[in-house]
């Protein structure tokens, strides 16, 4: 038993059961022995391999978007420092969420599901706080956020429609690399993976969407990340369960 964890008082009446853990186990059955019998050396996983693979797969969507569709018309008029800061924020959000979802801590085989969901939610919160403060708009060049709830909602849905497919690519790539690792807490890991994919979509929107204004950025861009995290939480357990069959 771990002394550091044993901070709860042990009930005096607890029977001495820990010793029974060393009881006999049946020998490996023939099917297991057959599988082991024909085995060879395998190439094991590195801690950062899955992270690199999903990041590379996830970047395909933003690159395609930027290559095939026009960049925002006010890009040249934007402050380069703010643009770099904004881009770095989205990239950091993506990297942080992806790392907790896929990179195990030193000495572990599996990523920590609890840490993944916590960091995933923190990332969404941090992005929301950032966009509630400044916005990347240049008077006269950036498009104004549409007036009225209906037009605002439509503009947000357009951006979410661009962001979500990018997030789903990361999510599917993440499910593919996680399917053999057999982690528990897929829902929690899905939150981080979805947030990472969403942040990748947000990074693409930074160069694509010309609409400035807090309401649009928080609802359409950060809200899209939150939605991607929700999709991740719902979709990853299903994808992992299917691939385990």
């Amino acid at each position, binding site marked *: 038993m771990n002394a550091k964890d044993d901070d709860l008082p042990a009930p005096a009446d607890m*029977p001495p059961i820990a010793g029974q853990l060393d009881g006999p186990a049946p020998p490996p059955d023939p099917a297991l022995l057959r599988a082991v019998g024909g085995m060879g050396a395998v190439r*094991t996983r590195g801690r950062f391999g899955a992270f690199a693979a999903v990041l590379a797969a996830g970047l395909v969507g933003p690159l395609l978007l930027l290559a095939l569709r026009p960049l925002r018309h006010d890009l040249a008029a934007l402050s380069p420092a703010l643009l770099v800061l904004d881009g770095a924020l989205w990239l950091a959000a993506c990297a942080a969420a992806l790392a907790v979802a896929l990179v195990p801590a030193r*000495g*572990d085989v599996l990523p920590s599901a609890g840490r993944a969901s916590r960091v995933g939610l923190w990332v969404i919160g941090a992005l929301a706080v950032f966009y509630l403060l400044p916005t990347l708009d240049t008077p006269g060049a950036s498009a104004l956020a549409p007036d009225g709830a209906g037009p605002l909602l439509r503009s947000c849905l357009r951006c979410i429609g661009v962001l979500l497919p990018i997030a789903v690519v990361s999510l599917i790539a993440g499910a593919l690399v996680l399917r053999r690792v057999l982690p*528990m*807490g897929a829902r929690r890991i899905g939150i981080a993976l979805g947030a990472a994919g969403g942040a990748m979509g947000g990074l693409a929107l930074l160069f694509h969407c010309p609409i400035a204004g807090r309401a649009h950025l928080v609802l359409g861009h950060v809200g899209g990340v939150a939605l991607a995290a929700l999709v991740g939480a719902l979709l990853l357990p299903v994808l992992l369960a299917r691939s385990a069959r």
Partner: protein
Amino acid sequence: MDGEALEASEIMRRYCAGEQAAFHQLYTLLAPRILAYLWGLIGEKPAAEDLLQHTFLKVHEARASYVVGANPIPWIYTIAHRTCLDEMRRRKRSRVRLTRDGTLAAEPAADITGAAADARADAEGELATAAMAALEHLPGNQREALILTKVHGRSHAEAAMITGTTPGAIKLRAHRAYVTLRQLMARPREKKLA
């Protein structure tokens, strides 16, 4: 990592390198406690023995996912946990449980450590029987937390990884399990004293 984790890590490295003897060493090292864990979760020894074989088969199939140098013990517990949950879900879906030869399975009482109910009574007496009966009344997630942290000696972080939750949740569940267990065990003695 402690000595046992280092030993398991070295065995796992040789296993992934294709050494068959390393598989048998890993099995000898971990099968008894994985069996005890599965028995505690599912409550039947024959089912736990089947799940043990499934668990090691999954470990074998997933060995390429192992990160060399890492402690494989929590990972193998996680695979056992997942295998057991899958079986429990499958059982919930099926209306009748049959054994391999097609007969209805008997459901012997068992405890979290894997001791049979009849042997247990002889060995540990009335108190142990009361403790084990009380354990069976705990909700599943509290029982898991208690078994992993207090019986199998896993840290809160490891138990959280095995069950897919947070260390805080594990601590809370283990604490609640302890409190419930103590209350459940106190009742029969209070009755006797009265």
